[in-house]
């Protein structure tokens, strides 16, 4: 059991009780240290609306941030992905065609799913939560206007480990 299990339990209960708009928990382990989330993007530039995010709670949580990355994979059939709220109805016809998760295109997201985000590194504090990461990522993609990969994508993915390491990033451009 994670030393901060009580906190994780509170966060988990709150995520279930007050789900974030357009974000749902696909699965989690019993210890609440591994989560799969599905994030829906309403940014019109993105053809794919649904993305899968893996969040891993490290031993040092909440003093250290969770690890998070986007992953590819097949989407369960029958999941309509209708997490859209009434204010943001999603186009059902294009959505049912989609059957796999891809890595969202973004200047801060590498093609292997690793994310360069200050909140996942130096700017994390224990006052942040899994929820703050989800909101940050959703807004980061929803507000994106630059449909490119990071400039060093090819080089980075050759040497990257399973997850992005805290010091592994050069912060290229804070304006996007």
């Amino acid at each position, binding site marked *: 059991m994670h030393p901060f299990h009580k906190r994780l339990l509170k966060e988990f209960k709150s995520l279930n009780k007050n789900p974030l708009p357009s974000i749902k928990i696909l699965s989690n382990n019993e210890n609440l240290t591994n989560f799969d989330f599905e994030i829906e993007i309403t940014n019109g530039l993105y053809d794919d609306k649904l993305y899968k995010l893996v969040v891993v709670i490290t031993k040092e949580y909440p003093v250290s941030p969770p690890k998070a990355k986007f992953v590819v994979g097949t989407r369960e059939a029958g999941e309509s992905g209708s997490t859209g709220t009434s204010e943001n109805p999603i186009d059902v016809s294009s959505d049912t065609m989609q059957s796999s998760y891809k890595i969202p295109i973004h200047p801060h997201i590498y093609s292997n799913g690793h994310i360069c985000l200050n909140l996942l590194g130096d700017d994390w*504090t224990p*006052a942040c939560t899994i929820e703050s990461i989800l909101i940050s990522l959703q807004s980061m993609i929803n507000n994106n206007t630059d449909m490119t990969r990071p400039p060093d994508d090819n080089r980075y993915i050759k040497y990257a480990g399973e997850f992005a390491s805290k010091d592994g990033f050069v912060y290229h451009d804070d304006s996007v």
Partner: protein
Amino acid sequence: MKVEIVDWQAVASWHWDLKDDSITDELCGICRVAFDGTCPNCKYPGNECPLILGAGCQHNFHLHCILQWLEQDTSKGLCPMCRQVFEFRKDFNTVTKDINSLLMLIDGHKSMRDREVDEEFDSFDDDLRMND
């Protein structure tokens, strides 16, 4: 009537003795457990793990929780809640080994910050010289 007591069990409840009771109703911002509960490192509540009351800001934590945070370099000695430099009310706690560690960590972060400021000034001086 004669009553014979066969067995008895004492029950006690406890509560931090603070002038301001509203503080003890709060949760620790790091472990999200009530202050009258224990931090995740402790089995029993007590003076081993007292409340640390923010002096610069109004944020309070279990001793072991804020210790764990300030042990991180990335904490930069800042309060997790408001990112102000973290100071705590020293009039409030008796000095223990862990309180001493807390003081040392806060001092360490302070000298790190001072050094960074000095370096900034140095490079600023260099820039000025280059412009001359």
